[in-house]
């Protein structure tokens, strides 16, 4: 049929109707076939956009618009309950000269550097362990997934009681005479950051384990059998078969956990209070944005500028993951 390839869906449907009609007598006069080179009748070009409209409108209103608004606000000196004036890049130059901004950036990047490798490797190891088909393994899978469904606030409070100066860890260590003074897990900025990382990793283990379980299910058993026949041991099979097969998933987990790590807030807020640790020493970028932008004296413009810088930082790490992923495909 002429032109069917151009508008396949419409052409097939109309063709089917014609065929059905042709079996019935008396046959109506068949429409004239389209002249060669003339476009067939089809739906208006904007039909797909009509279907996309609800999603597009939602994204525009609740993602695109706020994002563009944030960029515009970042170029002003807007404050809570006060209109702003255009100040160019002043907020950005202020941020780049602000010690608090650099300290928060360093904390965010440190968080990422520690948490991402842990969340790429540990859930994989866990997934390999619970992949085994042994009786009762479902219980372990569920147990490892439990922290994911637990509320972040509840998890934070539990860890607070575990790590506080008179909490479980310090009490046990003191009773065992390992330490004489409590370790300031929550009242020292560096240790507080480490404690928050621990909670993030603990909470993310089960979540990313499920990703890896899905990836492992797709690894052909024949590869393991061939490797075993060639004399490969468990470790060799893991590094030479499992890791290459789940590498795309590792890159995905790496990218997702990197984005999450840069947005971390809850763990530090619950463990370290609203100041973000003593002297605000454990503040990350989202924490700083909240402190600067909220409240009745909130500096909306400056907070927006830090948000845009955080976005750019996230973009860099996302692109890095994408590049690694492409290199892997090549």
């Amino acid at each position, binding site marked *: 049929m002429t032109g069917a390839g151009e508008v396949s869906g419409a052409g097939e449907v109309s063709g089917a109707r014609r065929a059905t009609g042709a079996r019935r007598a008396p046959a109506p006069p068949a429409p004239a076939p389209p002249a060669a080179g003339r476009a067939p009748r089809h739906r208006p070009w904007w039909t797909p956009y009509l279907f996309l409209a609800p999603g597009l409108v939602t994204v525009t209103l609740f993602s695109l618009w706020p994002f*563009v608004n944030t960029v515009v606000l970042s170029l002003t000196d807007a404050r809570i309950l*006060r209109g702003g004036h255009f100040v160019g890049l002043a907020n950005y130059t202020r941020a780049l000269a602000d010690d608090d901004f650099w300290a928060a950036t360093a904390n965010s990047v440190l968080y990422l550097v520690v948490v991402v490798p842990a969340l790429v490797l540990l859930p994989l190891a866990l997934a390999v362990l619970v992949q085994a088909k042994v009786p009762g393994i479902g219980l372990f899978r569920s147990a490892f997934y439990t922290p994911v469904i637990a509320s972040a606030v509840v998890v934070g409070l539990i860890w607070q009681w575990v790590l506080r100066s008179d909490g479980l860890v310090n009490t046990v260590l003191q009773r065992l005479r390992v330490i004489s003074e409590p370790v300031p897990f929550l009242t020292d900025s560096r240790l507080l950051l480490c404690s928050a990382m621990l909670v993030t990793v603990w909470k993310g283990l089960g979540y990313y384990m499920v990703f890896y379980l899905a990836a492992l299910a797709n690894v052909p058993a024949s590869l393991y059998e061939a490797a075993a026949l060639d004399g490969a041991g468990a470790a060799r099979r893991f590094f030479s078969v499992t890791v290459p097969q789940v590498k795309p998933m590792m890159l995905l987990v790496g990218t997702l956990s990197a984005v999450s790590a840069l947005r971390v807030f809850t763990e530090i807020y619950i463990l370290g209070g*609203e100041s973000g640790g*003593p002297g605000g020493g454990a503040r990350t970028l989202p924490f700083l944005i909240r402190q600067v932008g909220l409240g009745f004296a909130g500096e909306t413009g400056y907070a927006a500028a830090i948000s845009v810088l955080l976005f750019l930082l996230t973009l860099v790490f996302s692109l890095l993951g994408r590049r690694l992923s492409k290199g892997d495909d090549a």
Partner: protein
Amino acid sequence: MTPSHLTRTGIAVLAAAVLATVPGCGLGGGPGQGEDATRTGRVAGTVTFRTLQLKPVHTGYVQGVIDAFEKKYPDVKVVWEDVPGDGYNEKLVADAQAGALPDVVNLSTDSFQLLGDRGMLADVARLDPEAARDYVPGAWEQFKLPGKGQGVYAYPWYVTPEILTYNKELFAEAGLDPARPPTSVEEFFDQAERIAARSGGRYAAFMADPKGRLPGDWQKMGIPLLNDARDRFVFDTERAVGWLTRMKDLYAKGAMPKESLLKADDVNQLYGSRKLVFGPGSPGFVKDVKRNAPQVYAGTQVAPAVTGSLGHIGIYAQSLGIKRTTEHLDAALEFAKWVTNGPNQVAFARRATIYPSNARGLDDPYFSDRGDGTDAETVARAVGAEQLRTAQLDANTPVEWTNQVGDAVVREVQKAITGEQDPRTAVRRAQQEANRLLAAANAGGR
């Protein structure tokens, strides 16, 4: 024009429209615009009324007050909206920016100061000069604003004065006389040091919580916060350095739970499990202890708040502000006065652990009855009411001490307490940062 061309054009137009409308969101002029409402003498119209987290516990009480008002003024319709505490201020800010404040709105101290400072509240002293005599003078004065003369920008509603609560058993165990609680900040620190020395690490004296202690402690100690022009902080003094040095020393000696430095600790849990001698200075806390830890409640003693040499106490005040541009000013004023009148405030205080700001309400015998002096909740009620009548109530946090200023000061104080920097440097840096924030705020009309 081809479809793809049309698509691109459409997307470009959409993007341009988004960009063109963006400045309307978050930017533009300030919200304190519009004509002042004027009195007409006719109490009528629909009045919107917003309260702070009174549903569902106090639904019956508030609805009863509204119903009685509507019965008295049949031409008035009150539309009540209750908003939870979390996000209350954010919603106020959003509504103020959109020009959609309710006609009568429940304000806490900080939201009152902000909305009043931005010119969004009606001056009730000018519109209703007779009202002043109905309220406790200290409470009425609370709602004046610096630089705005004799104007009063909200009707005082319920108030909660600061009191002192402590575990008298642990107090005695530390060798202190439960009948002689501290009366000044310095004495409070002395007793805390003694408690830390005697407790053997089993309990601490008080919560570090610098954000809760400042600027109240400094005000009680007579440390000036601002200069006369109120355009610079001047708290960098020897006494402030002394206060911080003492806090650092007491923290190191175990007078405060370590984690309380970060406000991540639950004071109810610590006090309820006998790990803390001094509870928070709120009458509501005594009621909570009675309900949750009856054994600890039996050993709880209540005394007047630590006031310092100037006799100041802190007070947590709720008020009802009137939107400056309200369409039904007479109805809004009458309704706010109705809610805050003596009988209605006393009825409310009997349901919740609060105090009336209304003079006649506070004179109700309910607030002077100490019982036999053994029940902490009853004594707390009488002590709180007595303090409201007699203490100086001008120790409130000044409007210039914004949340951002408080956070900045607390960060430096925390560093000093944990030994990251010396107290003198901390106070100096705190003042520098506070002045930077104040100058930035003043540059744009706060």
